[in-house]
């Protein structure tokens, strides 16, 4: 079976489309990690794949309806079997890893009743560079190469 994993922004956008169609009550979602970087690439119509594919997206939400949707795509789920990646909900407290004013630079989009907030690529890279694992460095270099960050 070919490797699927998460390597293109289109995969993230399609998942957000499905989320927007499913959710009835207005709610917010924040996308961090490499899923956020891929979303930015897709938003700028950049099709270059992530050099070291990710296995999950890391959203944060304050909506129980969105959280329930995400639980249906957790590790080991039918969703993961079908798509090759899963959804890994992160707590709101993780946002303290970002610069305090990240919201001022974030991108905002609506998907049906869902409001998506994605921190600026430079802010998304702050915790990655702090961690500094080889794949984090590769994601930074990729973001720089495709012009997401200067």
């Amino acid at each position, binding site marked *: 079976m070919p490797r699927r994993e998460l390597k293109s922004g289109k995969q993230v956008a399609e998942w957000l489309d499905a989320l927007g169609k499913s959710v009835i009550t207005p709610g917010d979602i924040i996308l961090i990690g490499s899923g956020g970087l891929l979303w930015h690439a897709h938003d700028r119509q950049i099709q270059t794949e992530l050099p070291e594919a990710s296995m999950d997206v890391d959203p944060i939400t304050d909506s129980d309806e969105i959280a329930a949707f995400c639980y249906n795509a957790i590790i*080991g*789920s039918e969703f993961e079997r079908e798509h090759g990646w899963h959804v890994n909900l992160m*707590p709101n407290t993780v946002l303290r890893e970002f610069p305090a004013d990240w919201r001022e630079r974030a991108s905002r989009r609506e998907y049906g009743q869902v409001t998506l907030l994605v921190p600026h690529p430079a802010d998304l890279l702050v915790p990655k560079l702090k961690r500094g694992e080889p794949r984090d460095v590769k994601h930074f270099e990729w973001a720089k190469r495709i012009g997401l960050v200067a």
Partner: protein
Amino acid sequence: MTEHGILYQDYAKLEYGRMLWKRPDMRERLLRHWTDPRHPHAERFKEWRAEVEKLLESPPDSDDELDRELRTRGLSLRVVVREIPSVFGDFF
């Protein structure tokens, strides 16, 4: 890590567990999953169920108070949060 020394991944179980606990359908689904004999921590959950349920019923702004109360009994928020079982998508 949170101010109570809890790993973000562990704290996510509390934050979203609280959120989903309010929905009767999801509460029932979580309990069915955690008591399923296929769940590797089903027996452990039986021992900790009362403490875990108390945590999941608590309001999000009660962490400090909960931690103080748990410490009087030789526990801590960190210890009990770690007892919230994981959810495995293959039989959730």
